[in-house]
């Protein structure tokens, strides 16, 4: 933890420097791989918040109420007022008309173990049998059959034979909709098949088998088990090991829900069938269930209640079913300190975090992450702790140095018939931290020409003392030290820097490179004068050492350096202004507000109106002038095509001018040009007619 805090602090410092990017890359490489965790208490609490109880005891509709109750059942530890919700369900049950609502009401009642009046339920049973008789699609079968399973005990002796006949027909019809790849069609009308429908069909078929009994149903059970095997053969998988059933195109049409709904529904169907037909008949690999567990856990708690139900229902099934219960391996702490001699602790739980019967957990291998060298542990058995969840191991020994380790575990059960299985090797990562010894710290000022030390001092890293030195540009500053890990091996931290800070706050950062356990840095001031901007005066020397595995990171004030550099020549680069602090350097710049041009003062409306009249005066003058000159419209054609085209021509020009006016008022250029095209064409055609007519007339007059 200390190392992490130090890293964060150092990250801020790195930002200041030019090599911030390099720091970031170094830090990023230490981020651990996200391991799979069972649903934590925080996750469960968050999920419970999704389902809000209303005043009438429901969570919304019948369907939403069942979703909420089932999700809360999986999450456990809910303080629900059963009687209020039972009251809601009872009311809904008597008023519900369709099989879907009845199904959800009865399922919800099953969870809460509500008691109903017998005659209310008997009426429901006959309605459900009728619905099952008239059914044609998978959903038509699914809801009545599922509801009938919930009220199984109310099927009376006399109508049992009738019900059995109906259900046998239903089972045959469901079987007939099955496809060769294990998927199902929703109905005979559908051409596409669906994985989600397969899940519903499996659950419905299992329900029928539980109602009618398994006698003489061998071929049906074989058909269903082979369909399940085919479904699992076509399972899809992600790179992280998650496995899921993909959504088919027909599902997108009918309800949807994506791969989540498809996978959850199939899982439910398979588990229900396994509980009725017996788990031995179904041969589904533990790796498939582990893949499904990864799929449902790695998505985090979903925020939509309907989706959260699908996820939690599936997790509830994975937590407890008659087939396979996948195991999740997680580390309560992935950091082991050599100083406090921590033991490696491993939690083996189900997906919901509950304990398991005793298991045999072994470390198959533990390989240092950075170097692919030999495993330090192999085939070591972990010791089981009280409670059935945790297993511990003395991971730290003299040969375990600080660093990261990739661990591989194997889980086996002493009980060969156990449902609990890990479904493959389990991997995890631990970080071993420890105190790093820093010794032989030496600060020296060396003459550039002779190489002889003008000044030398040794510092004790345990006391973090400071020293004062002075140097000029003809000398070199030499800093050397050694670092060894707790097991006396060379230690190469991620960050080793020397920082020089001038009194004017100009900073220089130098990387110190190791050779074995020896670290050395020589600063030749002659070569560095330009980089130091010819700044003479007091410099603060700081040694910064940090690593994710280092418990004693260091930011050591080595002392002050009085540096005497030559005067800056003409045109030397000046140091940039250093921002007061990082926050202000990266703070948002002040917002630039757009300022619109303010309109200038306009004259009074009367003046403008007066000038409008003045502007129109020349027009009046023009009209009077025309009158004076004796202009007339005698040339205007009086009949036939010429009259039409003359009128059209003038109307065309007028309409174009009107269009220009509208363009000024509201139209945009595109609309205007489009309309102008039509009007222009009309005007050209009519204008051509009338003008050529006039030309003909005038040429006739001339020739005559």
């Amino acid at each position, binding site marked *: 933890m200390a190392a992490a805090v130090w890293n964060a602090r150092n990250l801020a410092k790195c930002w200041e420097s030019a090599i911030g990017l390099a720091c970031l890359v170094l830090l990023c490489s230490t981020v651990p791989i996200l391991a799979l965790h069972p649903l934590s208490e925080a996750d469960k609490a968050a999920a419970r918040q999704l389902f809000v109880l209303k005043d009438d005891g429901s969570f919304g509709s019948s369907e939403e109420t069942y979703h909420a109750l089932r999700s809360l059942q999986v999450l456990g530890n809910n303080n629900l007022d059963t009687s209020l919700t039972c009251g809601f369900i009872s009311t809904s049950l008597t008023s519900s008309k369709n099989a879907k609502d009845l199904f959800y009401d009865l399922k919800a009642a099953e969870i809460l173990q509500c008691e109903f009046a017998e005659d209310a339920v008997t009426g429901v049973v006959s309605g459900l049998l009728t619905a099952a008789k008239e059914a044609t699609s998978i959903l038509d079968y699914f809801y009545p059959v599922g509801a009938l399973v919930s009220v199984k005990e109310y099927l009376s002796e006399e109508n049992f034979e009738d019900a059995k006949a109906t259900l046998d027909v239903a089972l045959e019809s469901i079987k007939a909709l099955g496809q060769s790849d294990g998927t199902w069609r929703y109905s005979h009308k559908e051409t596409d098949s669906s994985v989600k429908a397969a899940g519903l069909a499996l659950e419905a078929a299992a329900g029928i088998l539980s109602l009618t009994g398994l006698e003489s149903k061998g071929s049906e059970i074989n058909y269903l088990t082979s369909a399940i095997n085919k479904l699992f053969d076509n399972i899809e998988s992600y790179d992280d090991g998650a496995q899921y059933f993909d959504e088919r195109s027909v599902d997108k049409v009918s309800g949807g829900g994506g791969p989540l709904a498809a996978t959850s529904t199939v899982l439910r169907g398979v588990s229900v069938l396994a509980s009725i037909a017996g788990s031995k008949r179904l041969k589904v690999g533990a790796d498939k269930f582990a893949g499904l567990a990864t799929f449902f856990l790695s998505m985090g708690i979903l925020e939509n209640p309907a989706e959260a139900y699908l996820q939690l229902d599936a997790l509830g099934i994975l937590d407890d079913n008659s087939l396979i219960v996948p195991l999740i391996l997680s580390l309560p702490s992935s950091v082991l300190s050599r100083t406090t001699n921590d033991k490696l602790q491993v939690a083996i739980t189900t997906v919901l975090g509950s304990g398991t019967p005793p298991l045999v957990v072994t470390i198959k291998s533990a390989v240092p992450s950075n170097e692919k060298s030999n495993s330090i542990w192999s085939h070591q058995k972990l010791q089981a702790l009280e409670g059935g969840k945790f297993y511990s191991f003395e991971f730290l020994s003299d040969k375990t140095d600080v660093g990261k380790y990739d661990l591989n575990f194997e889980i086996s059960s002493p009980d060969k018939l156990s449902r609990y299985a890990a479904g493959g090797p389990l991997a995890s990562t631990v970080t071993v931290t420890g105190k790093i010894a820093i010794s032989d710290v030496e600060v020296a000022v060396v003459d550039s020409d002779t190489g002889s030390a003008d000044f030398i001092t040794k510092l004790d890293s345990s006391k973090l003392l400071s020293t004062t030195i002075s140097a000029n540009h003809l000398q070199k500053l030499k800093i050397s030290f050694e670092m060894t890990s707790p097991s006396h091996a060379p230690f190469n931290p991620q960050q080793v820097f020397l920082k020089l800070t001038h009194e004017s706050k100009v900073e220089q950062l130098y990387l110190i490179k190791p050779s074995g356990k020896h670290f050395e840095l020589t600063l030749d001031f002659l070569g560095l004068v330009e980089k130091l901007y010819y700044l003479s005066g007091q410099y603060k020397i700081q040694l910064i050492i940090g690593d994710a595995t280092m418990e004693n990171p260091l930011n050591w004030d080595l002392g002050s350096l009085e540096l005497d550099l030559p005067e800056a020549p003409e045109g030397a680069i000046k140091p940039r202004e250093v921002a007061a602090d990082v926050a202000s350097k990266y703070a948002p710049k002040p917002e630039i507000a757009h300022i619109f041009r303010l309109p200038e003062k306009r004259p009074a409306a009367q003046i403008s109106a007066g000038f409008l009249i003045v*502007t129109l005066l*020349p027009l009046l*003058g*023009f009209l009077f002038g025309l009158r004076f*000159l004796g202009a007339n419209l005698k040339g205007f054609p009086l009949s036939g095509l010429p009259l039409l085209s003359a009128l059209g021509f003038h109307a065309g020009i007028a309409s174009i001018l009107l269009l220009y006016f509208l363009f000024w008022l509201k139209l945009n250029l595109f609309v205007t040009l489009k309309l102008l095209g039509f009007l222009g064409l009309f005007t050209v055609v009519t204008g051509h007619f009338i*003008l050529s007519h006039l*030309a003909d007339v005038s040429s006739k007059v001339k020739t005559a």
Partner: protein
Amino acid sequence: MGKADNDVGALVASLRSAYGSTPTKLKIIDLYVVYAISTALVQVIYMGLVGTFPFNAFLSGLLSSIGTAVLAVCLRMQVNKENKEFKDLSPERAFADFVLCNLVLHLVIMNFLG
């Protein structure tokens, strides 16, 4: 002084008589040019008295008047029978050009008006 007055009077009289023989069609065009120029003048006076804001509107109004006047002068040149340069061009064709140019000019003017 009286002689000069007489001269001016004689000049104006001869100009008037000479202009009297101009065809009526050309006189109409001349009247139109005068009308356009005087509209432009009114706007210039307005600008001088009140100011150019909004400048777009002032400029469009002014250019509309002057542009029309220029186009009308062009029309007059082409329609004038004395002008031998355009004797192959019929007056109808010249009028069609005048209309087209005016429409294009005013499309631009309206766009610029803002």
